C-alpha cells in the first residue's frame, strides 16, 4: 500500500511517501502502526483532529476500512482557492 503525506505532515515525516505492508483493517489501525515506527511519525500523527485522510484519492474518515485499498494519503485541512 502506498501511504502519501502532504504539507506539514510530509515535512514532519521527512518523506512524501512510504510503501507499507500492513494488515491494518482501518485507517485508525494504520495510523497506530505508523505512530509506533519512529518519533517523527508520532509527531506527525499526534493530533488526529488536525489531520484529514483520503483513501484511494477520495476524502474519507479515520474509521474507513482498508480492504483492497491501494493508496492512503494524510494531510492537514485543505487551503485551496
Amino acid at each position, binding site marked *: 500500500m502506498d501511504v*502519501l503525506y*502532504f*504539507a*506539514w505532515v*510530509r515535512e514532519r515525516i521527512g518523506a512524501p511517501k512510504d510503501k507499507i505492508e500492513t494488515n491494518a483493517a482501518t485507517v485508525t489501525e494504520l495510523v497506530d502502526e505508523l505512530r509506533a515506527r519512529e518519533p517523527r511519525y508520532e509527531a506527525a500523527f499526534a493530533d488526529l483532529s488536525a489531520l484529514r485522510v*483520503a483513501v484511494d*484519492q*477520495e*476524502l474519507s474518515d479515520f474509521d474507513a476500512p482498508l480492504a483492497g485499498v491501494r*493508496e492512503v*494519503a494524510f*494531510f*492537514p*485541512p*485543505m*487551503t*485551496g*482557492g
Partner: protein
Amino acid sequence: MRVAVQSDSFDFASEAAAFAQDLDGAGAVVTFTGIVRDVSGGLEAMEIEHYPGMTQSALTAIAEEAIERWSLADALVIHRHGRLAVGEQIMMVATAAPHRGDAFEAAEFLMDYLKSRAPFWKKEITRDGAEWVEAREDDETALNRWK
C-alpha cells in the same frame, strides 16, 4: 466544462472570453479570480502544494456537481500550484446560467469547495521563513450553506 490544474500562469482575459463563447442561451456569466495578496506586508511568495493523483478528479467532481445542481450552461475551474509571486493569479472559476442568481450561487459553491475540499495547501514564504496557511473556521462553516 473545463478543469485545469497547472503550474503555468493563465490569462484571465482570454480564459473568460473563451468561456463566454457558445454558452447556448445562458444570460448570466459570473467569474471569480483569486490573487496572491500580501496581507501582513512581508510576503515574498506563496507556494501551493497539491495531491496530483486526486486534484483533477476532485475538481471535476465539484464542477459536475455545480453544473447539475444549478443547471449551468457551463463551468470552468483553473487552479495553479507551485511558487506564485505576490500579485499573481492563483485560480479562477466561471459559471454560466440562464439567471444571475444561479450563476452567483454556483460560483460561490465552487469557491467554498475549493477552499476546504480540494487537495491544495498554501505555504507563505516571507523574509523570516515559511509557514503553512491554516484553514479558517469561516471557510469550513461556509460549506454548511450547501448541505
